[in-house]
C-alpha cells in the first residue's frame, strides 16, 4: 500500500466517523424541562436514532431489491436437506468461537458439549454437513464475545443499527470483532484469498434470511413502528441469549399498582 492510498483510506474513515458524530449529535434530545419526554428518551437508549433509522431504511431497501428475492429463491429452489446441510456446515465452523466463549464464561459443561459436537459432527456428520450430535444428547447452543462481555458485567451501551450488519450496540459490536480472532479461519485466510470468508458471510446471510422470511414479514405487518419493534426484539433476544434462556423473573418491573394514574415501573431490561 502506498502512502497516498493509506492516507486516503484514513481520510475516508475520519470523514465517516465525523459524519456519525454530527448525525448522532442531531438526535432529537428532548427539552430538559419535559420530564416525561426525557424519561422516555432515556428508556429508549437510542441517542443516534435518526442515523440508525436511516441505515435501517437503507438495509430494508437492499433487502427488498436483493436479499429477500435471493433468500426466497434459495428457499424455493434448493431442497430442504441441502439447506440444512449448509446450515449444519456453517454452524460447525463456528465451533471454535463458541468453545472460546463457553470457556471464557466458565461454562465448562457447555464447553464440553461444544467439543463433543465438533468431534461427532466433523467425523460421523461428514465434515459438519449433518448434525447427529443433537440426537445423541449434545444439542446446539450459541455463544459470542458480546455475551461473554455481558457475563463479565459489561453494559450494552446505546443501540446502534449498522449498514449490512443490522442491530447492535457497542458491546456486541466489540464482540463481533473479537470473535474473529477466536476463529482459526481468520488466520488461515489472513493474506487471502478472501473468497472463502466472503462466501461464508454471504451464504450465512442468505440462509438466515430464508429461515426468517415469514416471521419478519409478519412482524413488519403487525407493528405500529417496525424499527422500534426490531429494537425491542433485538434487546430482548440478546438478554435471553446472555442468560442462556434461564432468565430469572426477579428483574421484572413492579406492576402491582400499575394503572393510568400511578407511578411508572421501569422497563424489563434495566439499562446500564
Amino acid at each position, binding site marked *: 500500500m502506498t502512502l497516498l492510498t493509506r492516507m486516503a483510506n484514513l481520510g475516508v474513515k475520519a470523514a465517516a466517523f465525523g459524519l456519525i458524530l454530527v448525525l448522532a449529535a442531531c438526535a432529537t434530545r428532548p427539552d430538559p424541562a419535559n420530564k416525561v*419526554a426525557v424519561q422516555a428518551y432515556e428508556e429508549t437508549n437510542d441517542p443516534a436514532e435518526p442515523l440508525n433509522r436511516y441505515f435501517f431504511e437503507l438495509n430494508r431497501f437492499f433487502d427488498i431489491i436483493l436479499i429477500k428475492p435471493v433468500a426466497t429463491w434459495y428457499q424455493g429452489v434448493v431442497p430442504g436437506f441441502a439447506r440444512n446441510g449448509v446450515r449444519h456446515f456453517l454452524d460447525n465452523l463456528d465451533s471454535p468461537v463458541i468453545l472460546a466463549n463457553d470457556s471464557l464464561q466458565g461454562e465448562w459443561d457447555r464447553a464440553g458439549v461444544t467439543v463433543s459436537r465438533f468431534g461427532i459432527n466433523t467425523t460421523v456428520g461428514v465434515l459438519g454437513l449433518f448434525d447427529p450430535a443433537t440426537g445423541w444428547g449434545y444439542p446446539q447452543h450459541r455463544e459470542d464475545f458480546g455475551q461473554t462481555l455481558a457475563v463479565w458485567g459489561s453494559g450494552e451501551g446505546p443501540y446502534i443499527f449498522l449498514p449490512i450488519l443490522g442491530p447492535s450496540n457497542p458491546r456486541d459490536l466489540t464482540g463481533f470483532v473479537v470473535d474473529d480472532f477466536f476463529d482459526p479461519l481468520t488466520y488461515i485466510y489472513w493474506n487471502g484469498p478472501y473468497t472463502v470468508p466472503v462466501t461464508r458471510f454471504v451464504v450465512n446471510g442468505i440462509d438466515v434470511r430464508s429461515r426468517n422470511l415469514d416471521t419478519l414479514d409478519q412482524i413488519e405487518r*403487525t407493528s405500529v413502528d417496525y424499527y422500534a419493534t426490531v429494537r425491542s426484539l433485538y434487546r430482548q433476544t440478546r*438478554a435471553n441469549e446472555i442468560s442462556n434462556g434461564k432468565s430469572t423473573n426477579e428483574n421484572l418491573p413492579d406492576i402491582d399498582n400499575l394503572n393510568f394514574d400511578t407511578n411508572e415501573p421501569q422497563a424489563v431490561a434495566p439499562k446500564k
Partner: protein
Amino acid sequence: MSPLSFLRSAFMPVAFSFALVTAVVSASMPAQAANEDPAAEKFVGEISTQAISIISDKSLSRPDREAAFGKLLDGSADMQRIAAFCLGQYRSLPTEAQKNEYLGLVRNFVVKVYVTRLSDYHDEKLQITGSQAKGANQAIVTSQINFTNGRQPVQVTWWLVKNNGEYKIFDVNVVGIWLAQEQRSAFTSVISNHNGDFSALLSHLNTQIADADAGKLPPTAAGAAQ
C-alpha cells in the same frame, strides 16, 4: 480393630453426608412446593386450551375467529394494565376521551396481531412445566409448546396478576420475548417521534387495524401455516 468396626468407621463420614444430603433435600422440597401456584397453572391450562382450539378451528372465518379470540381475551387479560404499561412514560398523557379510544384500539389491535401471529401454533399442545408465586398478587407460569412435526419445543412464560382476586394475564413471553414490552417499545416510539403527540399513536393504531381488515395481514387460516 475388628474388620467390622474398621468398615463402620471408614464409612461413617459417607453415611453421615448421605443422611445430611437427604435431610437437606427433603427439607427444601416442601418449601419449593409451597411456592408453586396450582391455581395459576390451572388458569393458564384452560386459557391456552381455549386459545389453541379457536386458532385450530378450520370452520371459523377470520372475523369469527377474531371475535372468539377477542371474547377469550376480554375474560382473561388485564387489558387496562397492559394498555397502561404499553404507554410507558407517556401514561398520563392522554385525555380521558383519548384514553377510552386508546383502550378500544389496543384491544382490537392485540386481537388482530395475535390471531395472526399465533396461527403458527394451531393443533399443538401446550404443556405446563412449572409455576412460581411472585409476591401476593402475581404468578409466573412456565410452559412449552410441543410440536407434532419434530420441531424444537417453544418455551412460553405467562405473567399473571390478580385483579379483584382473580388471575388475569399481564404479559406472555415467547422464546425470551415479552410481548407487552415489545408493544411498549413501538407505542412510545411513535409518540416520541411525533413530539409527544398522543393522537399520532391513535392514528397509527387505526391504520394498522384498517390494514388488517383490508386483508393486508398475512393469512392466518389454520391450514395456511406451515
